[in-house]
């Protein structure tokens, strides 16, 4: 039994609590350094997973990370951790994003720094826990723990309207999680009825015979929880307020990782555990997703506050991702997981840039800017690249995922996919317009003329993101082929055969098909 995943989760959690408890407000830089060291160490450690994902051609090495212990035996609740192609890259994303968020908040947090940096670490640990859980109950526990540090980060360190944002965020989230709790209890009770014991392990719940009527309600309960997190239209209204009120590094973390966990939950739990209900409801949910794509794009066009603009842009792109999550083709599923990362990188970078802008100018209102490219050319270059990536320029990270999703979704929902494709045009419109108003033109305001260009620290933060944007865009194949086995397994639960597609070369597919069947019937590895 390996302890690797436990360490990956426990280390940031404990380090975060230690930072909160063992330092006081007047400890100066201790919380910063403590959090940074912990985050970077965890990032390096998480690279170990990468070896598993990329080295074993079919992800077999990932199985060796599995851990399973009894937690509450009477209820069939396990402490059960596992990773696969879906979760590996998201865990990596989480650890990297944590390090970046800590570094990005270096100067912006003045008071109560120990609470701030401790909360970021706890949030990171909880998010890794969500991604690594292989037991529904454990998943739920981590899912809820995630809310607490987010609540503190938004409530204590947020902007002037943070209280409203906080209530909206927490109440939306809690509504979702309480509904999910009903779903969890329902699935457990169904397992009890069908097999005579309580069990919450994912493997036990996949393929469970469910009574159709109740199952569709339970499916909707799960979807509500995940859709709220992933800001599916019309459950997205918490997102713009929360994103614009939270400190920018926190927004970065929320948008890069936490919103993605909603989609992850759909792919991991809601869809495959209720295949029939999912297939019935998917067209309607996909329609909502596309409605969100277009609505949020128009909303983004209308914003004068860059924070809100990026927030709405993020809702719009999440709509595309959700469209992929509600489709049942190989390309769409692979594209969805890929775009979770691709979108995280671009939107995250944009929020960081907005944060830097806010630190410099003291305002993120677009009308307070203009002509900044003359004053800060390096910044403008980075900004240009990230903006083009967000728009979906071929050769950059977001393009691959978006293309795969639209391509895959087209088979299931031709009209919806065509409508969603307009987001690329609208996205180009609001992004380029924003860039033009902020960076180009004459410098009309004296404050803008005094702005400083990108500092070394900021550049060092953006550099890895930029490399990821280009790397994922130019050579996505390793990541795509690492995601593929998991997506084949996922689609098998809906009876969808893996097809010959540009995403999975025949060389990969044949053994995969074989393997997926093996996995489906194989008993979970249990070593005590």
């Amino acid at each position, binding site marked *: 039994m390996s302890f690797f995943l436990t360490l990956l989760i426990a280390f940031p959690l404990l380090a975060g609590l230690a930072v909160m408890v063992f330092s006081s407000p007047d400890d100066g830089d201790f919380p910063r350094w403590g959090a940074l060291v912990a985050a970077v160490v965890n990032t390096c450690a998480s690279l170990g997973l990468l070896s598993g994902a990329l080295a074993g051609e079919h992800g077999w090495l990932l199985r060796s990370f599995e851990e399973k212990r*009894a*937690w509450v035996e009477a*209820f069939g609740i396990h402490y059960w951790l596992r990773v696969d192609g879906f979760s590996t890259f998201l865990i990596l994303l989480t650890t990297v994003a944590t390090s970046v968020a800590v570094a990005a908040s270096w100067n912006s947090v003045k008071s109560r720094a120990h609470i701030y940096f401790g909360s970021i670490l706890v949030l990171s640990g909880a998010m890794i826990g969500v991604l690594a859980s292989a037991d529904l109950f454990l998943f739920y526990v981590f899912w809820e*723990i995630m809310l607490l540090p987010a609540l503190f980060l938004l409530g*204590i360190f947020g902007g002037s309207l943070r209280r409203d944002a*906080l209530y909206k965020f927490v*109440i939306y989230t809690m509504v979702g999680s*309480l509904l999910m*709790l009903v779903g969890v209890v329902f699935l457990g*009770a169904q397992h009890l009825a069908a097999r005579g014991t309580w069990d919450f392990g994912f493997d036990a719940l996949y393929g469970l015979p469910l009574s159709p009527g109740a199952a569709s309600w339970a499916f909707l309960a799960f979807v509500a929880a995940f859709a709220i997190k992933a800001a599916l239209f019309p459950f997205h209204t918490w997102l713009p307020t929360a994103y614009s009120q939270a400190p920018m590094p926190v927004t970065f973390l929320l948008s890069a990782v936490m919103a993605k966990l909603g989609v992850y939950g759909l792919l991991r739990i809601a869809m495959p555990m209720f295949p029939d209900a999912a297939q019935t409801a998917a067209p309607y949910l996909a329609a909502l997703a596309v409605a969100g794509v277009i609505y949020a794009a128009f909303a983004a066009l209308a914003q004068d506050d860059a924070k809100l603009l990026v927030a709405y842009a993020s809702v719009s792109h999440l709509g595309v991702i959700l469209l992929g999550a509600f489709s049942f083709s190989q390309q769409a599923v692979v594209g969805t997981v890929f775009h979770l990362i691709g979108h995280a990188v671009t939107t995250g970078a944009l929020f960081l840039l907005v944060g830097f802008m806010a630190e410099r100018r003291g305002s993120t209102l677009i009308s307070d800017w203009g002509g900044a490219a003359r004053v800060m050319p390096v910044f403008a270059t980075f900004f240009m690249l990230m903006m083009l990536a967000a728009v979906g320029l071929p050769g950059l990270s977001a393009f691959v995922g978006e293309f795969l999703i639209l391509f895959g979704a087209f088979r299931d929902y031709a009209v919806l996919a065509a409508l969603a494709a307009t987001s690329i045009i609208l996205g180009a419109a609001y992004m380029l317009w924003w860039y033009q108003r902020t960076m180009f033109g004459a410098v009309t305001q004296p404050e803008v003329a005094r702005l400083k260009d990108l500092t070394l620290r900021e550049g060092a933060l953006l550099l890895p993101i930029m490399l990821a944007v280009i790397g994922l865009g130019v050579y996505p194949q390793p990541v795509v082929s690492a995601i593929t086995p998991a997506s084949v397994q996922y689609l098998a639960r809906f009876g969808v055969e893996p097809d010959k597609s540009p995403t999975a070369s025949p060389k990969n597919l044949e053994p995969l098909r074989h393997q997926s069947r093996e996995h489906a019937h194989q008993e979970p590895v249990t070593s005590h």
Partner: protein
Amino acid sequence: MLTYAPLFPVILLTLVALVAMLMSALVRDASRTGVFSAVGLLFVMALSLQQWGTQQGPANILGNAVTVDGYSYFFYVLFCLIGIVTVFIAMPHLEREQAQRGEFYTLMLFSLVGMFVMVSSDDLMTLFLGFETMSLAIYVLVGWRRHQLRSNEGVLKYFFLGSLAAAIFLYGIALIYGSAGTVNLQSVAALLTAPGSALGVNGVFTVGVLLVLVGVGFKIAAVPFHMWTPDVYEGAPAPVTAFMATAVKAAGFALGIRLIAFLFEHQQLHDIAHIILFYGAILTMFVGNFFALAQKNFKRMLAYSGIAHTGYLLVGMLALPEAGAGTAVLYYLVAYALTNLGALAVAAFISGREEKFDNLEDFSGMAWRYPLAGICMAVCMFSLIGFPLTAGFFGKYMLFAAAFKANLAPLVVIAIVNSILSVYYYLRVVVVMFVEPVAENAAAPETMPLATKAVLAYTVAAVVWSGVGTFNVTPFFPGLVPLRAKAEASMKALTAIPQARVSTGTVEGKSSAPLQANAPLIH
């Protein structure tokens, strides 16, 4: 002599109460009476745990007027725990209010005696004695700050309404006696289930049972008998509020569960009770939560939140025939007691002298001034919401799981909707304490007394520990009453009842599971 051994905890507690009474007359330093009461309760708790561990089935003594079984022991331990924590909340509080008197502790001990009798009586008259012993002592405690208008209003309301409830309860007993010819619960149950008996369809008997239920509904603050709660909770000193919100409510539920187990064996009566409880639960949940949303005073808010929790517990009572529902209700009571004790201990401390600052806005920013109080309040509020890794979460989870199994899915959905409503007002407390700046008119900063610190640390540890670890570890630790033992207790209580009566049909299917040390909590 050994026949009466199961009564030793009650006898010991009565002795402790009597000595405390003497001490309050003879010893000048009243805090010594407090310490003596806490130590005495600790001994009573140890004795109860010891007897609980070694008991062989239910003991029917004193001509079947008293039955001491695992169920009773469970509540003995819970009451002792609440009593000890209350003493620790009360000592520094009364010191500050300059109302430190030995009689406070004596009265609390006597009300505990009443509760002990309530949870171990098998006879409606004995039960009523316990009921009144408890109530009378509490009336005095509620009016402890007799110079305060709020306190006077509270005690007057509680006394009049409480007396009315007691009268109704007694009238119900009279009607039951009139129609059944006995007040012994086992005999009544035997008569109900005897072949050819018409007792179950007897109108007088039915009315009697319903009147008894009204008395219980008053004590547990079920709608529509909840009117007294907010005023009394607000008017009573915070330690008394804590004691009432936890111990009195637990005693009421203990009584309710026992009555339901005995009196509703008859199908028709059961159906009537089912309908009443079903709609009562819905009403109680909604009224509690909706009114709690609007409260500005912290103790009033907790009063309405307590009403809402009564509603959740009623859902559990409806599911009672289901094995596991008993465990769920008992566990929920423990979780609820721990969280309320913690929350009210915080309120007792930070609301300052004479509790002038017990409005929610007076708590602004207090988490930064008193970090331990902030943490404790946050943990308790999240436990009341039902947040994972707290006691409240597993309480709710077990309750809902049992209700699901008992085909009460609509009630589960309603309970979830109510939990969602409740998020706002619990969250508001946390937000006020952590997010808002320190209130200008708040009480002056003071150092936290050791006793308060101990209570806060204890409730945080207990609430979190019960949410994380109780399942696999069996801690012999007061307050973290081992869940397995809890399950055992409820199982024993539920299995003991059918054994004790003339068994005819209906009961066997409900709880025939044999008792095993490692039996699953929910089957």
